């Protein structure tokens, strides 16, 4: 085996120089804390989330409904105003 081959073999013999390591205490703490962190995130029950979403949907529906109603009312009011101005001007003409 020549020098080059020896160097190649020494690089490839990774089991002789890459050792197993233990995870740090800090990491172990992080791993043991995972269930508690997940439970913390899950604290808001699904039912509450859905009722909140339903509330927002109801609010949006009410808004749309009231906007539609107000447009109809505005149209009706506009008609009444033209009628009123017509009678007012015809009254002035008579004078």
């Amino acid at each position, binding site marked *: 085996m020549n020098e*080059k081959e020896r*160097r*190649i073999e*020494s*690089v*490839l013999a*990774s*089991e002789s*120089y*890459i*050792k*197993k*390591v*233990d*995870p*740090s205490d*800090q*990491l*172990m703490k*992080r*791993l*043991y804390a*995972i*269930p508690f962190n*997940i439970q913390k995130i899950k604290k808001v029950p699904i039912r509450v989330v859905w009722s909140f979403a339903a509330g927002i949907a109801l609010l949006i529906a009410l808004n749309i409904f009231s906007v539609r109603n107000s447009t109809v009312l505005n149209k009706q009011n506009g008609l009444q105003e033209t009628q009123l101005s017509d009678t007012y001007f015809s009254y002035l003409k008579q004078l």
Partner: protein
Amino acid sequence: MELDDKSFIELAKRDKNRAYSILVKEYSSKVYNTCVNMLRNSEDAEDVTQDVFTTVYLSLDKFKGNSKLSTWIYSISINKSKEFLRSKTRKKRFGIFTLLEKEDSHFVPRSAINFNHPGVVLEDKERAEILFSAIDQLSENQRLAYIAHKIDGRSYQEVAEALNLSVSSVESLMFRAKKRLKELLSNYYNED
């Protein structure tokens, strides 16, 4: 406390948190070492290990024992490391440079690639950098199989199950990986 897979599934149904603690005790070191060997950086390996155990905890109910518990955890570790490496590479390089690098048989050991393997002592750092730089030139499956078998010390069977391949495919991947590594290292030492 050591449990066989069947008793473990039973325990997980009754007390998920206790089952999870046993898993951490038994597999944290193996998962961390797999991640360190894949990522070669202790901080990244810690983050990915945490990610692996979060996935394990969340999918504990879905584990039905179709594969061995150790294989299941090992494949999660490999997939998470793979995802991490892909996202990191995407951020770092542009496609054209990756293509050029893959075709290059004259690699240069890159000591600046954030190499911080806690299992390698200082006097062996150069050797390890040369090896991992050469491993980086392999195709993804060759790289995963080589690291899993040669560095992690997993059997062909375990590697095959984790990578979703047949044992013969792993054998052939390993054969080609070793051949390619020898070529790369030979070129490197010719230039030296």
